[in-house]
């Protein structure tokens, strides 16, 4: 039984309204927005259970692109089928896209002003620092999991990470080589590892 066959559990205007409110409130990036969505979908609207939400979020890590979009799509489908997906995405995106475009347009107008340049010399390094935070947050769970699995996984993970950087920095190859090379390496290692474990037990 998949979610597709379940009866829609909310009206389209209601779905749009809830996601629109989330779209306006979602200042502060992914973690803050995720918490907002959880409160709205699980606690306030009873659209999904706690367990469903956790499973959805785990699956969203595998989907390409922005994880929050994928989560919106899954919850949207649960609540209103194909139209529910559209209502949820439109509600989430309409306010945030509009504000992003307006902010960029305003910035483009004043980008050459001396004050803007001075502010940017502060903002740009801060953006890079915050980008490092995002990077560390991705690495940390991976590193913890690899250490638990053993030295071999730790070494393979290190090779994948540093190798990918080297492919770009030293050999100037297209990024896709780094991504696929690293993914295939880790897939093969995980597979061989599980085969060996079944053979042992």
């Amino acid at each position: 039984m998949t979610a597709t066959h379940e009866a829609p559990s909310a009206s389209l205007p209601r779905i749009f309204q809830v996601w629109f409110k989330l779209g306006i409130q979602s200042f502060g990036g992914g973690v803050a927005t995720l918490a907002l969505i959880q409160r709205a979908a699980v606690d306030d609207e009873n659209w999904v259970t706690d367990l469903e939400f956790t499973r959805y979020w785990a699956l969203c890590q595998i989907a390409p692109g922005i994880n929050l979009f994928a989560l919106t799509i899954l919850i949207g489908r649960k609540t209103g089928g194909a139209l529910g997906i559209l209502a949820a995405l439109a509600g989430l995106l309409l306010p945030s896209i509009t504000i992003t475009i307006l902010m960029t347009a305003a910035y483009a107008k004043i980008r050459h002003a001396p004050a803007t340049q001075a502010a940017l010399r502060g903002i740009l390094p801060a953006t890079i620092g915050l980008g490092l935070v995002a990077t560390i947050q991705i690495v940390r769970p991976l590193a913890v999991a690899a250490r638990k699995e053993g030295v071999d996984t730790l070494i393979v993970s290190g090779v994948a990470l540093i190798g990918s950087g080297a492919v770009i920095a030293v050999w100037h190859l297209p990024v896709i080589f780094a991504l696929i090379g690293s993914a295939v390496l880790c897939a093969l290692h995980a597979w061989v590892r599980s085969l060996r474990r079944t053979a042992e037990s």
Partner: protein
Amino acid sequence: MNPLTYFLLALKASLLSTGGFGNIPSLHDDLLSRHWATERNFAEALAVGQISPGPNGLWIISLGYLVNGVPGALLSLAAITIPPFLILGVEWLYHKTKHHPAVEGFVRGLALSTVGVFAVVLHRLLSDVGFNARTLLICAASLAIGLSRKVPVVAVLLAAAVVGLIFR
């Protein structure tokens, strides 16, 4: 700039990555080699994306605008909206295969690679802004404050802007 090519490059970058920042390295590579965007454009778009509401992945909307105005922003929007729909296939596959070890390894490899490549890109953005004591101090301070998770991102960026304005 060719709009269709831009859309396809953005779509490729998003399809082959996870998370809102995963598409940066590939797009950075493709747009810079075609001279359609500058290092500075990427840093600017990332800054706007951090300040504006919605997922951080919306930075690419800002980049699209800087590169090609409102049409560019809408092309970016289309390019990042399509890939997450593959979640429907992922969920279906999940019900079929549950957990095959190779699948988990593949996903982990993608994530690790994104991080390695992203580190290189951040280094290039930083050298574009210019290596000096102030830049590195602001970068390190925002990293430390960001890791503590106690201060909203917008507040960190506003504080950095003020520092930039005061210490010209």
